[in-house]
């Protein structure tokens, strides 16, 4: 049969099904397959807070959005071209995100009476049959039946067979997009090495899906996407939490400080604990503490002993750690606190993304308690942000907060990874003996950065005591002197402010250095802002984009950059946090664009916002 083949530039596929349908795995497999072809990509997994919400219900829908393109892309896409709906609930929750004319690949077995009722469709109404999807290209496949049929010779039970449904769908998509299945076959053999019958049945289902596409005459067109024009080099695919892990390990290796992680499981930060626990061969010690407070205080203990102390958490855990962060500020000890933000307040939206802990990072402690804040803007950027957080922490003797969020933590993108040799050195010097003028250690005697010496237990002659009480400058002795307290508060602030002298100047991500609107972003809004600004610039508007890695202190030149624009726009996934700080620091009438829906800001809405601002 003659088949057409079309080369596409940009495709967005959303895999959606019940949380037990294996959509995350399916999406990840398609992602890896895409990455290895050198196609640019961006992903957005979206899963329910419940591990297993009732099967077939709307809250139980788990989704994985993958965008891939032969152009450079920076977001997982606002709308999708293809929606894979394993059941009625998956269709219902995701249909609004599908482009008109887009393809729906529906598993008809997931649209039986029971599933339709669970998805709250009116009695007797089946969207696959009632014409309501006429504006889309509907591809109906009884995936369940065909998977069972393909596996009829396997001895396993029906439940086990049904678990391979996602592989049937994946095989079908591999056919549609002209892919080779080797990566997934290799993965399945590897994953189920000890259960060969499971590996075989999955591979069989995968091939059955592929062959179904190949032999069924309905599908007259296959597609492909070419390699993206990316900077030459070696790439791999990486997710944000994984990149933080690697950044921390790399910093530990390059600084020579053994890594200690104190952590308590919390969504969406737990993967950093899981990942780090795998790398004991790098001397990484992971301590799953009894609570968030023990997680950070154990890391403080480790840092006091000369380790690279790290704690990882999300918003509610940050709240619990605040008192200990204050201790780290008083002790002036290196410590990295990673906050993978999620929707709040309280338990909030554990699996949804938000940027609402910035003010908490800035101000959320008792007393005058300044700490540097670093933010990561994309999955791959998490590596550099983590590495930089460590550098600042150990060289300036201060705890540092690293902010990421659920969106980039679980999202993936290609990463042009560095070699160990390319990474900048992180030099750390413990104090090993008394200085010429010292009779005994002066634990709060400062260097030009205002950093105090790191003298670790086991060093003869440097025995000293430190603690959370206010201390006399230089000697570190307890002091309740009024003048001394004011001096110490000012010094601790100045020490953090001074970091601005040791970080790069702010650069514009795109656009000219003067213009009508400067869009300032931080964190995971990077891709949406970059894409929206590019689109606006292409229309000839004087709009520029600056994205902040250093949120506290700001780069020294940020104020000068701001002065050259008529208007400042700050899009954030919160109720307006950076915008308050920028207004406060630079006395500028910055405008916010705020979305607080647990989902990323889309390029489209930002373009609309910019157009609205430009037209007034």
């Amino acid at each position, binding site marked *: 049969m003659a088949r057409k083949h079309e080369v596409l530039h940009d495709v967005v596929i959303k895999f959606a099904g019940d949380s037990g349908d294996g959509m995350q795995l399916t999406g990840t497999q398609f992602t*890896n397959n895409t*990455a*290895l*072809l*050198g196609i640019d990509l961006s992903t957005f997994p979206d899963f329910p807070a419940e591990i297993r919400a009732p099967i077939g219900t709307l809250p139980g829908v788990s989704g994985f959005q993958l965008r891939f393109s032969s152009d450079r892309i920076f977001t997982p896409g606002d709308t999708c071209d293809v929606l894979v709906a394993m059941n009625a609930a998956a269709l219902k929750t995701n249909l609004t995100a599908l482009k008109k004319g887009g393809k729906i690949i529906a598993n008809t077995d997931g649209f039986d009476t029971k599933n339709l009722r669970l998805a709250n469709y009116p009695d007797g109404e089946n969207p696959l049959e009632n014409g309501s999807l006429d504006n889309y290209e509907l591809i109906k496949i009884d995936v369940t039946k065909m998977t069972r049929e393909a596996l009829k010779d396997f001895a396993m039970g029906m439940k086990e067979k049904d678990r391979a449904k996602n592989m049937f769908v994946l095989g079908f998509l591999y056919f549609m997009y002209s892919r080779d299945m080797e*990566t997934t076959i290799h993965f399945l053999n590897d994953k189920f090495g000890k259960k060969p019958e499971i590996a075989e049945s999955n591979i069989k289902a995968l091939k059955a899906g592929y062959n179904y596409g190949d032999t069924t005459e309905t599908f007259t067109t296959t597609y492909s996407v070419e*390699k993206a024009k990316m*900077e*030459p*080099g*070696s*790439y*791999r695919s*990486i997710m944000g939490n994984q990149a933080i892990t*690697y950044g921390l390990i*790399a910093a530990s*290796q390059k600084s020579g400080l*053994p890594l*200690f992680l104190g952590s308590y499981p919390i969504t969406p930060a737990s993967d950093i604990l899981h990942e780090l626990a795998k*790398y*004991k*061969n*790098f*001397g*990484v*010690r992971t*301590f799953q*503490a*009894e*609570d968030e*407070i*023990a997680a950070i*205080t*154990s*890391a*403080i*203990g*480790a840092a*006091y*002993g*000369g*380790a690279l*102390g790290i704690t990882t958490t999300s918003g509610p855990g940050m709240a619990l750690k605040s008192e*200990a962060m*204050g201790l780290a500020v008083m*002790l002036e000890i290196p410590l990295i606190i990673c906050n993978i933000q999620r929707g709040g307040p309280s338990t909030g939206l554990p699996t949804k993304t938000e940027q609402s802990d910035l003010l908490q990072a800035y101000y959320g402690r008792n007393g005058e308690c300044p700490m540097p804040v670093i933010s990561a803007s994309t999955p791959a950027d998490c590596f550099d942000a983590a590495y930089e957080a460590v550098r600042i922490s150990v060289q300036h003797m201060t705890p540092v907060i690293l902010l990421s969020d659920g969106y980039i933590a679980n999202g993936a993108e290609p990463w042009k*990874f560095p*070699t*160990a040799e390319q990474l900048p050195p992180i030099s750390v010097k413990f104090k090993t003996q008394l200085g010429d003028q010292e009779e005994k250690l002066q634990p709060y005697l400062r260097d030009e950065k205002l950093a105090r010496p790191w003298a670790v*237990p*086991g060093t*003869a002659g440097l*025995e*000293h*005591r*430190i*603690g*959370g*009480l206010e201390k006399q400058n230089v000697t570190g002795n*307890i002091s309740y002197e009024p003048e001394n307290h004011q001096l110490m508060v000012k010094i601790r602030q100045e020490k953090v402010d001074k970091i601005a002298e040791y970080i790069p100047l702010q650069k514009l991500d795109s656009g000219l250095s003067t213009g009508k609107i400067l869009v300032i972003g931080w964190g995971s809004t990077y891709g949406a802002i970059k894409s929206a600004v590019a689109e606006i610039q292409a229309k000839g508007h004087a709009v520029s984009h600056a994205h902040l890695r250093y949120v506290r202190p700001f780069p020294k030149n940020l104020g000068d950059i701001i002065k050259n624009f008529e208007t400042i726009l700050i899009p954030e996934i919160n109720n307006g946090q950076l915008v308050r700080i920028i207004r406060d620091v630079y006395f500028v009438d910055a405008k916010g664009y705020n979305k607080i829906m647990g989902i990323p800001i889309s390029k489209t809405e930002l373009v609309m916002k910019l157009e609205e601002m430009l037209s007034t």
Partner: protein
Amino acid sequence: MSETITAPALTAKDFVTDQEVRWCPGCGDYSILAQVQKVMATLGIARENIVIISGIGCSSRFPYYMNTYGMHSIHGRATAVASGLKASRPELSVWIVTGDGDGLSIGGNHTIHLLRRNFDVNILLFNNQIYGLTKGQYSPTSEEHKITKSTPMGSIDHPFNPLALALGADATFVARSMDRDPKHLQAMLQRTHHHKGASFLEIYQNCNIFNDGAFEIFTEKGSKPQETLFLEQGKPLLFGAGNNKGIKLDGFKPVIVHLDEGHSADELWIHDEEDIYKAQILTRIFDDPKGEGHLPRPFGVFYQTNRPCYEDVMLQQLEEAKSRKPADLNKLLKGNEVWVIN
């Protein structure tokens, strides 16, 4: 304790700092400090290898007065700070100084978790049955009906039995001593140090300002022989004037027998520190000394056993992982699936 480098001969004075000791005159903490300084000098550990970590409370000022490494951390968290330090620096001798409020109330969670993990550290819990630093509220070890600033009609709280709690958390060393018996306290500090694993030493400490005399009945000459029972390994449980009384087990129930009334020492309970079942009964001997027919309060080592220490097993895993797969940062960064763009 792990082996540490032999230090030059030290005296108690070597452990004194230039900081003025600021406890109230007459506080039991002075005696404890003196005994700790004396004992530390005999341990053969260099000062730089000793770290004392405390939380918040009167007792937690302790590190400032000890010329070693030390950290005065935050309320209740000394145990957690010490866990992280010991995990990353197993060769250090780590001591935790805490109190009944710090270690059993706000920091109770960390205390029990440290004990079950069995880090090789020493917990000195100064129990004065009151909140001193905050000026006199009842603590989790205060007796029921106690009138304090926060309980004008008497406390409704039932108190903790700290040693039973520690044993319940599977502590590998559980002991009790008191501020007013320097010799016994020194002996117990020695034992605490020499135990490999988490050592829990409860020290009865008099707060002469807010709870004066709380332990008088155990510490004063007149009542001490009748009211205290000093445990010695392999010896019968004897107490009273001239050891005229003893404890025997009637089934699972400890009962008092009078040796001068025809009972012989052969009938008595022989102390065995390694017997967990007997240790559970011993820690439960916690009678109100005002109650009729009450049992004397035991002091000494109730229980001790050996179990692998957290930091040692952690280190073993690190070594094993290194021998299986040497660390290679480039391999880690590269991963398994790489594509090249030319």
